[in-house]
């Protein structure tokens, strides 16, 4: 009971910070918009994939990308919290480490989901029309994706010393996760080596699931995408709570 309130307090703090630092949301929306309207729009003027304009084709991939980036990079804030000594107050409070982890994860997911929501709202501008059920399914897929990726970011953040180190490690992680996810290309005609890597990239299943519910193109059945995402989230969440138990 009291832990639930403590988790709420942790989440509330993250949410307050997010709403007070408006630059966070503006910068995180800016890059995906460039991808959709400049890259997608530019290439889309000449290229169709599976009978669909390229800009529409990459739209779900870019929505997934925005969640991928904001979720993993959220982990850097825990390093700042430590650096400016405010993490200590939380670590010495009579809270379980699991509660601290859950509060932080929920905070990060809230950030990512607010962005995801904005990205889904601009679907109309791209020419993608979402039914209410498609919208809700997209939110579910993106939530599972952000749950696992926020956990990943926090795990790395809790182990790292400096924001610079974090950024370096995470760049090596985030860009491959993005490029191998099939966000920018269809999965069905890939060479074997590339196909094999896309299959082990968990973000692939987020992109595929989103594509299924938004524009009706799919490589895997939706339940399979959801299953993989849920399993990935469960694994990262478990590793995250263990890592926080040991964090000093």
């Amino acid at each position, binding site marked *: 009971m009291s832990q639930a309130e403590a988790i709420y307090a942790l989440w509330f703090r993250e949410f307050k910070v997010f709403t007070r630092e408006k630059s966070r949301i503006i910068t995180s929306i800016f890059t995906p918009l460039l991808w959709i309207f400049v890259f997608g729009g530019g290439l889309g003027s000449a290229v169709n994939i599976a009978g669909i304009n390229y800009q529409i084709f990459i739209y779900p991939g870019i929505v997934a990308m925005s969640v991928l980036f904001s979720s993993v990079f959220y982990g850097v804030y825990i390093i700042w919290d430590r650096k400016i*000594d405010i993490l200590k107050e939380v670590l010495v409070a009579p809270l379980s480490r699991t509660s601290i982890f859950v509060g932080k994860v929920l905070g990060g997911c809230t950030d990512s989901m607010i962005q995801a929501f904005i990205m889904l709202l601009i679907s109309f501008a791209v020419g993608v029309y979402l039914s209410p059920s498609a919208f809700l399914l997209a939110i579910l897929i993106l939530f599972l994706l952000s749950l696992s990726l926020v956990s990943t970011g926090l795990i790395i953040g809790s182990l790292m010393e400096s924001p610079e180190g974090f950024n370096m490690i995470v760049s090596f992680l985030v860009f491959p996760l993005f490029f191998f996810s099939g966000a920018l290309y269809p999965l069905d005609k890939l060479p074997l080596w590339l196909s094999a890597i896309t299959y082990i990239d968990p973000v692939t299943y987020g992109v595929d699931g989103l594509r299924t519910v938004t524009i009706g193109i799919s490589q895997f059945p939706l339940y399979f995408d959801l299953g993989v995402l849920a399993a990935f989230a469960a694994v990262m969440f478990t590793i995250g709570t263990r890592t926080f138990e040991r964090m000093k």
Partner: protein
Amino acid sequence: METTIETQDLTKRFKDLTAVDHLNIQIKQGEIFGLLGPNGAGKTTTISMLCTILRPTEGTATVNGFDILKEPDSVRKSIGIVFQQPSVDDILTGRENLVLHAMWYGVPKAIRRERIDEVLKLVGLESRQNSLVKTYSGGMRRRLELARGLLHLPKVLFLDEPTLGLDPQTREVIWKYIEDMSRSRDMTIVLTTHYMEEADRLCNRIAIIDQGKIVVMDTPGALKGTVGGDIVCLKTDPTDPERFRKIESVSKVEVQDDYIVLTVRNASEHLQEILAVSGKVESVEIRPASLDDVFISYTGKEIRRETGEGGIAQRIMRERTLR
């Protein structure tokens, strides 16, 4: 009186460095107890172990009757901590910081608002409670930390260098708050400091620690009494200090750089005798013994005056944290 904190051979080793070495102290309820020592003496390490932030290598302690190893959560609920480095959240308002703290420490919702108003009033931050902490001065931050440390009505309050880096007026204000708190709530307060005058002013009892060990532990008055007189500091030829030992009232002779420092009973009455043997004197200073002199007389060295970065324990904690 009841014992609130008791340590048994409390020890912390970091690799080959022993930061705290078989510490045995008992602190009674309602006391203001000072851990006094230079940076790196083991003060922060001791407090960190009592607050269950660091695990002792050896030995244990009880705080409010709870064992720090077996019942860390109960210990944490019953204590308040004010850190050496301010840990209030810049991007929140003063009041928001307190609301979050109240939730983390399980202060019941029904009394939360009232408690927060009360501690804000105590530290004089009512008018600034809704401003973001990043607009606060250093002293205001420290006061907010004090308010936060008190919010959940802890039985013991730990203050780690509560006035480090603050200007003299702000220190005076903080001292006053600490005294008020101790008086009005019968709260046990454990503070670390390397300011002698702070320990002298606030503490009922002081343990002087150096290199992880207690050098001496007593009331400030008794400690100053152990020095055995006033301090006479002569700037004179330091080559033959033995000449002063013949004077009966001189109990101690020391050479510090160009100075000869004497400990003398009733120095003002015996000054003539001292000057008679001293030869040419450039300057003379007489003052009553301070805790500084106690420290010097027990450890043979002056307390180092640097401020800021903190001791070995913190550096090591930080390194460990980051790994």
